[in-house]
């Protein structure tokens, strides 16, 4: 499967949108080269603000700009965008219902070598608690393109969580993307692997192992629609599978697993295994090495899926 850069796509989509819509403003906090907002900045410099290393000021200033009618994209690494500036996201953006699109890159362990300080494992949990904020975690470049376009034309606050690393192209160009809708990457009625972002293609590899080596038909759901959550899709697969395994490059508390478990407990209780980071920070290493080190790989997903079905 070919791979593409999600943040590279973000920069390209932003530029395309910025050419068409002169109310689009882009802000960054000294990471434009990394978040790829630089692609926009190079051509549309009069609508790009590098706010320097002031994420909190950037977020509130973005809200102020939005309150004069602008559509503002503000970017940084997820750890600074949602973590450091959480109170500004809460009060300046969400409480004001300001038309600000928070697009974070370098999420989770996938950051790799920079280590724990830069690997945010809490941002989805934080973002999920905020009223008015829509949360999307694209799994590939095409979905990133759709998510950014949707955010640009939908009033109100968004958080789009992107990765540092390139990810396999999972969707075909005719993919139908919509707010609050996840996608089915692979059908199957034994067990459902529900993943987000960088873990979707890992879940897909695990599903193939489950089917080939263990004769367990496994579905793979890309739950990019974190808030609003795609409850219809969850119900469809809850009705036909014996359990869910959720997989995320994020804390097991309050993220994708938390959202799915909350949904299941209130709508259709079924066995769930939540895979992610448990009560620990990340560390330095390549993203592949980190995923192996912390058990976010094909083998572990297969083992968790089999344990739900009581197969040892």
């Amino acid at each position, binding site marked *: 499967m070919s791979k593409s850069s999600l943040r590279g796509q973000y920069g390209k989509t932003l530029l395309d949108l910025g050419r068409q819509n002169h109310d689009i*403003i882009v802000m960054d906090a000294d990471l434009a080269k990394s978040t790829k907002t630089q692609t926009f900045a190079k051509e549309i410099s*009069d*609508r790009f*603000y590098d*706010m*320097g290393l*002031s994420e*909190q*000021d950037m*977020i*509130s*200033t*973005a*809200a*102020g*700009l*939005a*309150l*004069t*009618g*602008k559509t503002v994209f503000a970017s940084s690494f997820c750890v600074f965008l949602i973590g450091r500036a959480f*109170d*500004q996201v*809460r*009060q*300046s953006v969400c*409480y*004001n*219902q300001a038309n600000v699109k928070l697009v974070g890159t370098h999420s989770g362990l996938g950051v790799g070598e920079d280590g724990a300080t830069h690997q945010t494992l809490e941002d989805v949990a934080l973002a999920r608690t905020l009223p008015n904020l829509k949360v999307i975690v694209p799994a590939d470049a095409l979905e990133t393109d759709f998510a950014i376009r949707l955010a640009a034309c939908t009033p109100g606050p968004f958080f789009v969580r992107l990765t540092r690393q390139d990810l396999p192209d999972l969707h075909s160009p005719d993919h139908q993307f919509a707010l609050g809708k996840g996608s089915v990457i692979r059908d199957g009625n034994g067990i459902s692997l529900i993943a987000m972002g960088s873990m979707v293609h890992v879940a897909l590899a695990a599903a193939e192992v489950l089917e080939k080596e263990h004769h367990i038909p496994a579905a793979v759901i890309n739950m990019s629609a974190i808030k609003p959550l795609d409850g219809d899709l969850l119900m469809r697969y809850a009705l036909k599978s014996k359990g869910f395994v959720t997989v995320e490059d994020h804390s097991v508390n309050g993220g994708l697993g938390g959202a799915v478990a909350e949904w299941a407990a209130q709508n259709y209780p079924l066995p769930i295994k939540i895979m992610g980071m448990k009560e620990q920070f990340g560390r330095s290493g390549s993203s592949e090495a980190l995923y192996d080190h912390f058990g976010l790989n094909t083998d572990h997903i297969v083992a968790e899926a089999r344990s739900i079905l009581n197969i040892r």
Partner: protein
Amino acid sequence: MPKRYDPDALQEIARRLRVSIIEMLAESASGHPGGSLSIAEIMSYLYFHEMNIDPANPDLIDRDRFVLSKGHAAPALYAVLAERGYFPKNDLFGLRKINSHLQGHPHRLDTPGVEASTGSLGQGLSMAVGMAMGLKLSGIHSNVFCVIGDGESQEGQIWEAAMTAGFRKVSNLCVFLDHNNLQIDGKVTEIKNISPINSKWEAFGWQTLMIDGHSINEIHEAIRLFHTEFRRPTIIVAKTVKGKGVSFMENQVDFHGVAPSQMEKEIALKELQHV
């Protein structure tokens, strides 16, 4: 609104704002009197002489904007909005109550005339900077006014925003620093001294003016200087008295966030010559 400058009329409005502040806080039995009373002249001047606003058309695209970054002084903002006709004065008695549109701290989606929701200190100034940048970018020649506190100036975000506005020459922004030298835990000079104030703001690239924040004439002169500055944002450091106008509240730190009792209300209204 007559644009003829009438300092006595503006002073009289400031007095009426103080009466409203005392009345609504006594009724709600909760809220922040001290820092509301200290900005009565500033609010009177902005809303009754300076700003291009129309309560009948609160969304006019070329209106001037006001952001109360020290959001706990909401009673002063609500008093002046009611006085100016954005909503009935009787609504003020709903302050902080369950079915009222007057939240404990300003919320733009609840209250007509409120431009930005504020309360977590430091954020309002950044929002005001963003608004001023947005207006400039759109070619709209309106101004943004903002009030920050001296305790609030201990927030790092104030200085991030100060750097942004100074660096970007956001000259359509005028900030008042309500310098009453009191914060919840005591005197600003004793908790974490923010002085030297003037040289800090000058160093950040702002036109920095010092005035008596209770003198309508000094506010008038400072705003005149704001209108002649086209390269820098302006900050007006307004020396004020917390609790101004009510003898037993003046310079009393305990009236930062404690509403007056019914008996205190009666005394306060008598002092404010409200009969």
